[in-house]
């Protein structure tokens, strides 16, 4: 782990939904940082605020208070119109439900991320192709997303997340919809990305198998970070 240069800094981040009697503190004063090459696993029961936190880390939701800094860029100090640029160039997303564009092929799904960043033509095609080959999908480049298996979809999703070489990868339940073998392959892929390429990976999950690749585990409950894992067995991960 490279602790000298935090890629991600989260300082006292709070998110409040609603007002007065209907007010809910989904995330409450969360602080941590993550360095290049580090894998941070955020665990917690359903409704603990994990996904809300991840959404704020990705610049998709503004915190009510606190700071999120990615690669030295303070998201709170930026105008809303500037946030897409941060997402394009500094953040990669991996989703539980893959979120591939079903009408496009595997290669096109990766190309789209490059197109969005202004890369087109042969450069985009070649980069997408290389990423998918690295992800073990050489024989699936032209397959429509809807024709791929769950594991293949998630690998395409990871390739897409890496297309613009982001320093920070945010993964929301990346193994939840995968069987044991595919789940293990995705875990291995995330581990390689962090350790071989020095990217920071923040994973939100119930899946305790991911503890094996995590450098650090944060436990979130009722929007707050806890010092240690809860003892209750059901909170260790229902997906096991």
């Amino acid at each position, binding site marked *: 782990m490279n602790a000298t240069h935090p890629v991600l800094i989260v300082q006292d981040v709070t998110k409040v939904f609603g007002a007065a009697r209907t007010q809910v503190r989904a995330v409450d004063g969360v602080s941590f940082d993550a360095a290049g090459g580090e894998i941070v696993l955020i665990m917690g029961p359903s409704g603990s605020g994990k996904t809300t936190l991840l959404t704020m880390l990705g610049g*998709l939701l503004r915190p009510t208070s606190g700071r999120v800094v990615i690669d030295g860029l303070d998201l709170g100090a930026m105008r809303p119109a500037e946030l897409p640029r941060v997402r394009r*160039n500094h953040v990669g*997303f991996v989703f539980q439900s893959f979120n591939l*564009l079903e009408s*496009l092929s595997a290669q096109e799904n990766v*190309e*789209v*991320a490059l197109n969005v960043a202004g890369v087109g033509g042969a450069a985009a095609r070649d980069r997408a192709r290389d990423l998918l080959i690295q992800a073990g999908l050489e024989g699936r480049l032209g397959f429509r997303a809807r024709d791929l298996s769950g594991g293949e979809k998630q690998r395409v999703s990871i390739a897409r997340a890496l297309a613009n070489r982001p320093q920070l990868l945010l993964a929301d339940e990346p193994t939840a919809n995968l069987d044991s073998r595919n789940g293990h392959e995705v875990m291995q892929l995330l581990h390689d990305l962090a350790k071989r390429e020095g990217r920071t990976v923040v994973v939100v999950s119930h899946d305790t198998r991911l503890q094996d690749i995590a450098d650090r585990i944060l436990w979130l409950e009722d929007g707050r970070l806890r010092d240690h894992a809860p003892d209750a067995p059901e909170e260790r991960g229902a997906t096991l």
Partner: protein
Amino acid sequence: MVPIARRNLLAEKGRLAMSVCGVAFAVLLVLIVLSLYRGWSGIGRVITRLPGDVWVTQPGTNNLFRSSSFLPAGREGDLQAVAGVQLAMPVYSREMGYQRDGADYNVLFMAFDAPAATASGLPQETRYRYFPAPGEIDVDSVFADKAGIRTGDVMDVLGQSLRVAHVTKGGNAVLAQSAFINGADARTIFGTAGMVNFYLITTQPGADAAAVQHQLAGVIPNSEVHASAAFSEALSRDVSEGFLPVVGVLVGIGIVVGGAVVALTTYTATIEKSRDFGVLKALGASSAYLYRIVITQSVIVGALGSLLGVAASAISTAVIARSIPEFITDLRWIDVTIIFLATLAMAIAASYVPVRRINGIDPAMVFRA
């Protein structure tokens, strides 16, 4: 660039086909109406094709078809004496009903009463078309088609039997078609002893038309002089002014229908792909990138619909011309180009609502399973 717009449309081929057909029908409606308008507004050419370029009429005559005009007969010599006049002919003209096999037809019977010797100096095409021999009649092809008349048939015109000598083109004025008879026959049929309806003047090549008209004005007391072009324009204007409001309404309806079809298609496609747009937003897509997808979808539907509509219009006008010959259609490239561009503009305008919809998509939705 990945063609997301095209892929989105092709994902629902049935809907795409229906949308394209909807736009095509709107374009077809507009182009057919415009081609009819163009065709009808050019009917004044029926007058400019006649063998002369200046008309002498009774005062107040402003339309060869609808106005009556009576002038004293035998004044052609006086008119012929005017400098710059090559030929002056009495003209007998009357629009009336003609019955054949139980059907009524509106026919403008005309006779140019030039002596055979004089007429023989005219171009062969003119003599052939406008100067039948006594007992003969030359009829317009549209009228002939409608009434089932062929060369050699005999027509009974108010008790006078006339043999059809020629069937010619160019005498269709939509509401009536022209037929040309001999001057002597006209005097008998119309019973206009001592009167003619008009005098038609052919000016000499190179003569100052305005000066000739000016001199002609005083030759026959209580008469007026009109250029053929003025009569032609008056006839075209009559049709245009009567037809234009209808054209305007139908073109407006066509554009609204086409726009609604494109808007509905693009909106539906956008709604269905809301999650995809959310994903693209999450990936950092700019608003311009997303708008381009929506607008491209609209333009594709508009362009395909336009092309299909133009093709259908070309076929339809050909079919109309064959099956309803008096409906003159004139499909012009300028109209096709304008309607094509208008459809594209309409398609872009129709993207407004879906674009607003995209603005409202929360990219955080992508984290909801």
